[in-house]
């Protein structure tokens, strides 16, 4: 049994590659969208930046998605208070969020950042909603890095009007 076990472990070691956490995400303009390919393999980070903004009516607060399916800011009391205080909204689509442990990880990591005034992870939309503290900033690269620390990966980031789903 011992040799069988050792062979199994060695074979697995040969088959696997280290968990991909390389950060190819660059800093982007605060108002840009950042799309990271949602490739099934975690080794694929194909980052595309573009400047377009979503043009859609204000979202329904109940489902926190725009008509095209993009998640928008999930509204909670904490998030509403942070918005009222003048914080900037950010929504990030997160890959791999399937349970409350995922949400806890993201809440802990992002909630510990002084730049973040409010955070919520919505399992339905697989989106991380953030509101920054007034006059604070958090780059796309920093958000992606924090998500990696939580054990997850960011697929896209929307800010301000695009995060709220408000027509420009």
């Amino acid at each position, binding site marked *: *049994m*011992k040799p069988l*076990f050792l062979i*199994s*472990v060695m074979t*697995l*070691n040969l088959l*696997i*590659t*280290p*968990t991909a*956490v390389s950060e190819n995400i660059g800093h982007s303009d605060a108002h840009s969208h950042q799309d990271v390919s*949602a490739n*099934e*393999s*975690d080794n694929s980070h194909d980052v595309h930046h573009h400047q377009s903004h979503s043009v859609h009516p204000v979202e329904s607060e109940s489902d926190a998605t725009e008509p095209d399916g993009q998640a928008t800011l999930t509204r909670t009391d904490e998030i509403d208070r942070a918005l009222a205080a003048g914080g900037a909204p950010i929504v990030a*689509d997160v*890959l*791999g*969020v*399937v*349970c*409350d*442990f*995922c*949400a*806890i*990880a*993201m809440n*802990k*990591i992002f909630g510990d950042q002084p730049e973040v005034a409010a955070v*919520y*992870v*919505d*399992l*339905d939309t*697989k989106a991380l909603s953030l509101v920054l503290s007034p006059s604070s900033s958090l780059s796309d690269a920093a958000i992606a890095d924090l998500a*990696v*620390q*939580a*054990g*997850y*990966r960011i*697929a896209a980031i929307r800010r301000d009007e695009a995060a709220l789903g408000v027509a420009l």
Partner: protein
Amino acid sequence: MSRLVGTVALLLLSLNSNISTARPVSYTGGVTLIEESDRQSTSLLVHFTPAHQWSIGLRGEHNRDQDYALYTLHPTWLAKRWFGANHQGNLYLHGGVGVATGVNGNPLGEDIAAHGGVMADWETRSLFASYRSRYLDAGHFGAQFVHAARAGFAPYIGKTGDLHTWLMLEIDHRPSERISMTATPLIRFFKGPVLLELGYTFSVNQPLINFTYRL
């Protein structure tokens, strides 16, 4: 001192595979407490995650059938995580080294022990599958290979923070045991940082009680 530590650990384990099943690596800086009790043994693992790819923990385990306890340093490496918009898959390698010591009058004394194995899981918000294995060499207490597979589904999909419920079936294979293969239906409750699994292995009349708390 070691007798005191052992006594405290055994008390903790007296609640009743023992291969940690619920996310053995946490977020960076996270601490997790995992209690597992199956048809043969009961374990308690407290692990800390210094970086998102690995955790290090202290493990105590009581083999009720053979009257020995195991105390090991237990590292786990997240070898691979697959991400998708609606799913997550993980492959872990885990190990441990420490001591095995006789309990309940077992005269075999103490010996060095080591264990290692693999775990893999894949889940969506409504489907779950996993496999785990462990080879344990407990010195003169003997060696054991265990592996188990699980499949389950969630009868409903809860929102963030809701009570999530899963119905699962675990098939457990221990070649060295008289009844080598057993099936354990179980129910998993999951709310916030708490995960509780309750099951029963009918063929050996033993409960399964697993509890996880993530700080």
